[in-house]
C-alpha cells in the first residue's frame, strides 16, 4: 500500500507483513494472536496511561507551583498588603511545604476526594461536574458533526481526485485549516450574528442549559469544527486515494461490486485507522482547545475553569482538572488505539 504523505498510516503491529513477492520467506511467524492479544495490550496501555496521568499531574503541579505568586497573592490582587497576604496564606494552609500539600491531596484522591478549592472553599468535584457539561456537550456535538462531515468531504475529494471538486475541497480545507480559531470566531460572529443577525452572538446567560438554546450552539460548534474537519478530511482523502487505487479495490470493482459500495464498504475501512487516531487527538484537543471558543462565546466549560484556576493559583482545582484531562486523554487514546488496532490494514499471511 502506498502510504500517503509521510507514511503516517499506522503500521500493522501484530502480524509480519510480507506482501510483495516475499511469500516464500520462511521465517517462522507467530500465529495471529489478535484476539488473545487484546487483554495484555489493554493492560499495558492502562498501566502506561496510569503513569501518564501521574506524570501529567506531577508536571502540572510542578508548573503551577513554579508560577509566580500563589493563591494568596492572586486573591490579594491589587491590595497586596503583606500582612493580609500572610493571613490568607495561613488560612489556605499555603505555608506548608509543597510536597506535603501534594501528598495530602494525593491521599485524598485515593479516597476519591479531589479536595477543595483554595479560592472558594467549594469541593473541586463541583467545579469539574459543573464545567464538564458544557464542554462535553460542545465536544459531543462537534464530534457528531465532525465524523460525517470529515469523512464525507474526504471521500468526496478522493472520489474526484485531481478534478474540480477535489481541488475545491482541498483548497477550502487548506484555507480554513490555516485560520486560527480566534480569527474565525470573530469573523463568524461579526458576519452571521451581528451583521445578519441569524444567530445569537454568544451563549451568555444560558449557563449550563445550552441544549435549551440550540441556536447559541451553532457558532461555537462551527468554530470548533473548522480545523478538525479540515485535518480529518485531508487524512481521509489521502487514505481513500490510496485505498481506491489499491488492488483490492480494483478487485472488488472487477467483480462487479457497485462504486458506492467499493468506496464505503471496501475502501473506507482502510482509511479509518489513521482517522481514528486523528479523532482521538481531536477530542483531546476539543477538551482544551475549547478555551478560545468558550471565551469567545461565554460558555462556562472546563477550559474557562482551568484558566481561572491557574490565574487564581487554585492548585487543587488545577490538579483535579489535570487528573480529568489525563484520564480522558489516556482513555481516548486507548480507545483510538483499539479501533486502529482493529482496523489497521495488515497485509501478510499467517503461517
Amino acid at each position, binding site marked *: *500500500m502506498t502510504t500517503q504523505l509521510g507514511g503516517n498510516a499506522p503500521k*500493522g503491529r501484530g*502480524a509480519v*507483513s510480507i*506482501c*510483495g*513477492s*516475499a*511469500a*516464500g*520467506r*520462511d*521465517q*517462522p*511467524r*507467530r500465529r*495471529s494472536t*489478535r484476539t488473545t492479544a487484546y487483554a495484555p495490550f489493554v493492560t499495558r496501555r492502562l498501566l502506561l496511561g496510569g503513569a501518564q496521568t501521574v506524570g501529567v499531574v506531577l508536571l502540572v503541579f510542578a508548573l503551577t507551583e513554579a508560577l509566580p505568586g500563589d493563591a494568596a497573592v492572586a486573591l490579594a490582587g491589587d491590595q497586596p498588603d503583606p500582612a493580609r497576604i500572610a493571613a490568607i496564606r495561613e488560612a489556605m494552609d499555603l505555608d506548608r511545604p509543597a510536597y506535603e500539600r501534594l501528598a495530602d491531596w494525593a491521599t485524598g484522591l485515593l479516597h476519591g476526594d479531589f479536595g477543595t478549592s483554595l479560592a472558594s472553599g467549594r469541593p473541586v468535584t463541583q467545579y469539574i461536574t459543573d464545567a464538564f457539561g458544557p464542554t462535553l456537550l460542545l465536544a459531543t456535538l462537534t464530534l457528531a458533526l465532525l465524523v460525517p462531515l470529515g469523512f464525507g468531504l474526504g471521500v468526496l475529494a478522493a472520489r474526484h481526485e485531481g478534478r474540480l471538486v477535489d481541488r475545491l475541497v482541498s483548497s477550502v480545507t487548506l484555507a480554513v485549516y490555516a485560520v486560527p480559531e480566534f480569527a474565525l470566531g470573530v469573523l463568524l460572529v461579526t458576519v452571521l450574528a451581528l451583521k445578519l443577525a441569524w444567530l445569537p452572538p454568544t451563549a451568555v446567560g444560558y449557563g449550563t442549559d445550552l441544549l435549551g438554546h440550540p441556536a447559541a450552539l451553532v457558532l461555537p460548534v462551527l468554530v470548533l469544527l473548522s480545523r478538525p474537519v479540515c485535518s480529518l478530511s485531508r487524512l481521509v482523502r489521502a487514505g481513500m486515494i490510496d485505498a481506491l487505487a*489499491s*488492488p*483490492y*479495490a*480494483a*478487485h*472488488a470493482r*472487477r*467483480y*462487479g*461490486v457497485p462504486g458506492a*459500495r467499493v468506496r464505503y*464498504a*471496501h475502501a473506507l*475501512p*482502510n482509511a*479509518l*485507522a489513521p482517522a481514528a487516531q486523528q479523532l482521538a487527538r481531536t477530542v483531546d484537543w476539543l477538551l482544551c482547545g475549547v478555551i478560545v471558543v468558550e471565551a469567545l462565546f461565554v460558555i462556562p466549560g472546563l477550559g474557562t475553569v482551568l484558566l481561572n484556576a491557574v490565574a487564581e493559583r487554585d492548585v487543587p482545582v488545577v490538579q483535579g482538572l489535570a487528573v480529568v484531562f489525563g484520564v480522558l486523554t489516556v482513555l481516548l487514546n486507548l480507545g483510538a488505539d483499539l479501533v486502529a488496532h482493529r*482496523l*489497521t*490494514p*495488515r*497485509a*501478510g*499471511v*499467517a*503461517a
Partner: protein
Amino acid sequence: MSRGTDTPLVELRELRVEIDGRAIVDGVDLRVLPGKVTALVGASGSGKTTTGLALLGEYPPGASVSGEVLRAGSEPVGYIPQHPAAVLNPARRVRALLDDIARPQVRHLPRAERRQAARALVLRALEDAQLPDAEALLRRHPHQLSGGQQQRVVLAQALLLGARVIVADEPTTGQDALTKSRIVEQLAAVAARGIAVVLLSHDLDVVHALADEVLVMREGRVVESGPVERLWTAPRHEWTRRLLDDRRAAPQHGTAVGAGRPVLEVRDLTAVHDRRTVVLRASDLALHPGECVAVVGRSGSGKTTLARCLAGLHSDHDGELLLDGTPLPRSLRHRDRSQLAAVQYVFQDARAAFDEHRPVLHQVARTAVRLRGADERAATAEASATLNRLGLPEALAQRRPGALSGGELQRAALARALLARPRVLICDEVTSGLDTVTRRGILDVLAGLVGEGDDLSLVLITHDLDTARLAHRIAVLDAGEVVEQGPTRKVLTDPRHPFTTALMRTTERLETGTPL
C-alpha cells in the same frame, strides 16, 4: 458466437499495448478455450501479465491499446494475482467481498430469503475452492490466513462470480514443491469444471504439469505457441529452447568435501522468537572449507532462522557458533571486522537489501572499504571487476537499484558479499521469485564460486530441490528440526525421512509433468 467446445470464451487478436510509445504487448493472438489451461510463458517483463489482464479488460494506466478483445457473452473473468494478499481487503473480513459478489445473484429472491441464499452460494464456492471450515474462515481477516488459504479465497471469489475464465498470475512463484503441487492440483480441478484457465507463469514445471496450450512470450511478442507436449519435445524457436534448457537440472557436485577442520560449526543451537517460541533446534552442523551445503525445507521450517543465526542477524538463541574453532559472537554487532567479513549473507529480496538512494557500485564497494580497509578507489575498481565477473556491466552498476532488475540486483548482492572475501557465504533463497533464465544465471554464478576452489564455503537456503542439487551436502529441516542430513546424491536418491520423500516425489512429479 456459438458455444462449442472449440469456441473460445475470450479471444485476443493482434493485441498491442503501448506505454509512452513502447510496446509492452505486441501483436498477441490468444484463444481461451473452456476447460483448457492456456499458459503464457516467459521471463519477467515479457508481457505476460499485461496480456492476462487484457483478458479482464484491464490495462496499465496511460496505455494505448489496439487490436481486438472478443468475448463470448458477458461472463465475468476471474483473476488470481501473484500475491493474493494484495487483492484481499486487509481491513475487512474474508466474508465482505464474497457477500458482495453473491448479492446480485440472489436479487431475484424475496428479500427474506436473500441472506440465506447468498450465504449458501458463498459456502459452496469456498467448498469448491477446497476450503474446509468455511464458516470460521469467513470471519477472519486476510492476514489471519495462510498464503494458500488466501489464494483459495481469491479462487473462491472467482468461482462465486461464476467466472468462465480464470487468469492465474504466477500462482506458484516462490512456493515449495508441496505447495506447488497443491496449487497445480487445484487449478487442474478448476479446469475440470469446464472453466478456462489462463496461467501466467515462468515456472515451467508447473506449466508442463498443467497446461494444454502454451504461448511463449518474449518482449511482448508471442515467439512460439502450441500444445505443451509438442513444445516440450520439439521446441521450434530458439528462445523456447533456451527457456526449456535452462530448466534442466543444475550440475551436481559429486563428492562431499568433508575432510579437515570445519570452518563453521553449530553446536546445540536453539533459536527462539519472542523470547519463548522455539523455532529451531540444530544440535550439530558443520561446514567445511570449500563445501556447499544446502538447507532445504518448506516455509516456516526454520531454515531462514538458521541462516540468520549463522550470520549474526538473529541473536536470540542458545548454543555455540564456532568459526575456525573459536566462538563467534551471536550478534553481528559484536563481531569484529574480520568475523563480519568471514561470514557473509545474501538476502532473499535483493531489492529490499539495497539502499535505493545510492548507486549499486558504490554500495558494493563499501564492503571492501569497511571490512578490508581498502581505499575508496581500489574498492570501486574491485567492485567493478567482481560485478563484471558476475555479469553486471559497470554502466548498469553505476545506476541506482531502482534501475536494475531483480536478477541483476541479486548478482550485485552476491558481489557485495564476495567483496568481503568471506570464508562462508550464506545465500538465503537467492533464486526464488526469479524467472528460469535469471535463476539459471544466478545458480551458474554460485556454482562457479564453489568451483573456484579458494575454499569459499556456501550455505544455500532453499525450498527448491532443484537448487539444492548444486550442493555437496543437503540438510533437510522440518518444523525447526534437522530431519535428515547427508551427501546430496544420497539424500536426493535415497531419502530416509518421510518428509524428504514427500518433497522429492512431488518435485519429480512436477518435473516430469505427470498428471496428478
